[in-house]
């Protein structure tokens, strides 16, 4: 009886969200499906010849997967996600726990970690370029005019400079910069969520641990992590989803200078192109069918990974 009553109540609570989602999320998804399976679809052609002028089929998928850069895009996307999500989650957890366990200047520290929220995204991209880019000499034979702040620090500690993002840079060096940048970008959000979670964790668990003389490390793994597990799961799952959609960070690092979407160091454009980067390029080039097909492929991957994540978190998360 009670359960039945709750049934319609639940739907009423959900109604506002469902209406908006139906119009602005579900319908675009349906449209995406339609475009992906319409051979050679473009909006222009639909306007000219109508929605039924396309034959149903997999041509767009064939076109996407036969593109020479497709495996690069896919590989880059996977690589960046697999590297950045665990690193940023771990770091954010450490910062959140550290913030929660200091007393002196605690408020100031917390304020500092909130500051990135009010830093406009325009400013962030410019900073990284300046930090890692080496400014070559005016001639090919001249020495560098600037080796960048990071390399200056490395040399001050007796290391050798590395070409991070310049034309002669290695993939590994590029990757290091991208990982740092993406982690940096992801940190504030994760810290905020985890700190929010930590604040709601009951202090008495810790008191109990203290009385038992449990070590800090043990407390961290045995109390903090399990209690925070819903938040951690959230951060990881959304991190993966966001990671697969990586695009703007690559533009941020390598700029958009001369040739459209370069997505790589000078001379090696597209080296770090990602799935979303590819989708964007196809939309600009008016290949809407290809863009939709690529989006569906990406969706399939994200879906599979999220299912695995959810399965794992079901087993590990403590409510």
């Amino acid at each position: 009886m009670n359960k039945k009553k709750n049934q319609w109540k639940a739907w009423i609570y959900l109604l506002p969200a469902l209406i908006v989602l139906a119009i602005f999320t579900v319908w675009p998804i349906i449209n995406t499906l339609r475009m992906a399976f319409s051979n050679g679809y473009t909006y222009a052609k639909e306007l000219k010849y109508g929605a039924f002028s396309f034959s149903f089929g997999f041509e767009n998928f064939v076109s996407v997967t036969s593109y020479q850069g497709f495996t690069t895009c896919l590989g880059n996307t996977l690589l960046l996600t697999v590297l950045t999500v665990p690193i940023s989650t771990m770091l954010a957890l450490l910062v959140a726990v550290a913030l929660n366990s200091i007393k002196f200047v605690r408020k100031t520290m917390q304020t500092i970690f909130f500051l990135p929220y009010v830093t406009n995204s325009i400013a962030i991209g410019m900073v990284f370029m300046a930090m890692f880019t080496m400014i070559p000499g005016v001639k090919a034979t001249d020495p560098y005019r600037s080796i960048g702040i990071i390399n200056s620090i490395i040399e001050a500690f007796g290391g050798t400079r590395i070409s991070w993002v310049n034309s002669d840079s290695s993939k590994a060096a590029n990757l290091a910069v991208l990982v740092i940048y993406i982690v940096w970008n992801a940190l504030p959000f994760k810290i905020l969520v985890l700190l929010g979670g930590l604040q709601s964790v009951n202090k008495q668990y810790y008191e109990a641990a203290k009385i038992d003389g449990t070590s800090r490390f043990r407390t961290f793994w045995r109390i903090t992590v399990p209690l925070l597990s819903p938040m951690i799961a959230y951060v990881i799952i959304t991190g993966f989803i966001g990671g697969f959609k990586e695009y703007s960070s690559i533009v941020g690092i390598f700029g958009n200078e001369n040739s459209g979407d370069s997505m790589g160091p000078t001379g090696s454009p597209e080296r770090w192109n990602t799935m979303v980067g590819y989708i964007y390029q196809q939309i600009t080039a008016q290949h809407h069918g290809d863009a939709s097909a690529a989006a569906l492929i990406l969706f399939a991957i994200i879906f599979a990974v999220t299912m695995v994540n959810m399965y794992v978190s079901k087993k590990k998360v403590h409510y």
Partner: protein
Amino acid sequence: MTDNINEKEVTPEVIEDAAEQDAKSKVMKEKDIDKVSKKQLIMKIAVQTGLYLFLGIMAIIVLFPFYWMLISSVKTLNEYNSTVPTLWPKQFRWSSYAVAFTGELNLGRLFLNTCIVGIVSTILSLIVTVLSAYAFARFEFKGKNVLFAALLATMMIPGELFTITNYVTVSSFGWLKTYTVLIVPFLVSVFYIYLLRQNFMQIPNELYLAAKVDGTSDLKYLWKVMIPLAAPTLISITILKMMGSWNSYIWPRLVANDMAHKLITVGLRGESFKDMSGMVDYPAQMAAVVIVTIPLFLVFLFFRKYIMRGVSRSGIKG
């Protein structure tokens, strides 16, 4: 745990009580520290030093863009454009701020628009999110899991592809160049619903059942118990949503690029800072960014207090 709640209603007084008890136990803790051995004290100092060192380094890394924004705003255009960037301005040029204020950017209007859109969409979004998360966390209904999984699945499709379809939709609604078009399409975030649901689910079910026994209505329970307990998460959502309005660019530029509805980032990225040869006056742009950042920063300082208050709020005896 449940017994405790049954005895007293959760009221501010109870929370104050809890806070007091927290304070008492802190005093107890301090006394304990006196008893610990010297070795442990050294250990503690080492750990604390490590913590501060770690936080200090992270803080510097995190703050760098903020610092960059500030110094860029006072550099001269030539210094800014010089190929070798400087860490400290050779010469301070405050006139960038005058340019940002008096230029034809119309900062006041941009700011007003952003505030209207930011505040309205945050409030509406919170309401919708709370209701949905509550339904998912507390009700059993047919197809709940499937629906929830389907919602999560929508997060996984790259949103870029939605833009064109949504554009056609809003233009057929006649919403172009209105506040509505900036608020409604992104009102529901599955991210937030998920986040809040996770938080709601942490709240023991017994609390709910107890409230039911007391005859508390669902809405009252949501308002009196769930929302206060989930306050930190709600504030996190508020911050994220506000920042969303702050940094949104592609959609607003497309659907409401007129002065009456233009948002701040659209204005800041636009052509207002270009000189006649097409070179951008970045220092002036950065100055404008700083100006619009200050009020936001103050709002965040205010919120931080609430997050801290959330600590004592959630101090229910367990």
